[in-house]
């Protein structure tokens, strides 16, 4: 989604000196993934758990 992702090395995220929050958005990909806002299906496994662990 963003071109200049935060680099993580040896358990540490590097702090960029680029302007603002430091990332630029992939506008083309953004257009490809854009969707209408809609309600989500409610399944037995709640959305707040990591998938496949509600067992």
């Amino acid at each position, binding site marked *: 989604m963003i071109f200049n992702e935060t680099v993580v090395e040896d358990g540490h995220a590097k702090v960029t000196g680029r302007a*603002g*929050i430091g990332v630029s958005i992939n506008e083309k990909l953004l257009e490809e993934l854009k969707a209408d806002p809609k309600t989500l299906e409610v399944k037995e496994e709640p959305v707040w758990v990591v998938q496949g662990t509600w067992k």
Partner: protein
Amino acid sequence: MLDMKIREISPIVLTSKEGGSATWASTMILVRVVTSDGTTGYGEAVPTLRVSQVFRAVEQVAKSLVGKDVERLERNYHDWYLQDFYLSRSFESATAISAVDIALWDLVGKELGAPLHLLLGGKFRDSVPVYANGWYRDCVTPEQFAERAKELVRKGYKGLKFDPFGRYFDWIDEKGLREAEERVKAVREAVGEEVEIMIEHHGRFNANSSVEIARRLGKYNPLFMEEPVHHEDVEGYRKYRRSTNVRIALGERLISLKEALFYLREGLMDVIQPDVTNVGGVTVARKVCALAEAFGVEVAFHNAFGSVQNAVSVQLASVIPNLLLLGELLRLVPVMEKGLDLQ
């Protein structure tokens, strides 16, 4: 004066068929703010089960802020506080204004040619210690948890957070306690004593259950127990505090500075976990961190959504003196990785 007006505020919902480590990780809500001179800034809001409601809340915030000065960050937050009678009670409103606030800070930085950390007082550290989160998709057996944990340690992670509680909610029985202990024991043995482990509870238990959990799992030396009790159960947290000696982390559901003050003043946490995408953006998050510093409480930003949240969280984490760790879900979530420049 930067002389930039807010021309447009747009919520954008993104989805991926690939899914993610959590259902909400396959949906993102970005907020794009465009200025009068055409400069674009981005923020991010929290999706959970409220995607359409948050989308509409951002549209409502736009009605209040379009036409106003980009650089008047405190004033813009205040103006929404003035307009929305229920801001202090509404997650949707709080995450909407948070996303817009992040985008406004992004714009001010771009206009000045300065990174956010410079606007906030400069770097306290050049890199931010992170822990891995969301790494245990489809893990059920202790062996599965242990194997995945070893992979992360090999990649350099020095902290791992995970939820070992399966499908238990509100209460847990002896079988659940035994299963959780087997998973935690397996991870601790797999990673050794030099790697921090953090036990995620997802705010799912009552106090009696969480106290029993602490008695069973405390011996594995977790760095903290995250949201061991239902978020709003203040009496439960008091009981948990009186009955255990483990470190408590909470804060991802805080939606205002004054709500953070309440939990801090009650002494209910050792580590605060503000989420910049719902506590009030950069404008409020920095105040929460300062407040926590005054209480001697460390900060571990909650950072479980998308790339924009991650970027702004790293910037904030780089400037505060009382940082403990930053959660990191990003690289483990397919929708976020697509199109990335993986350096």
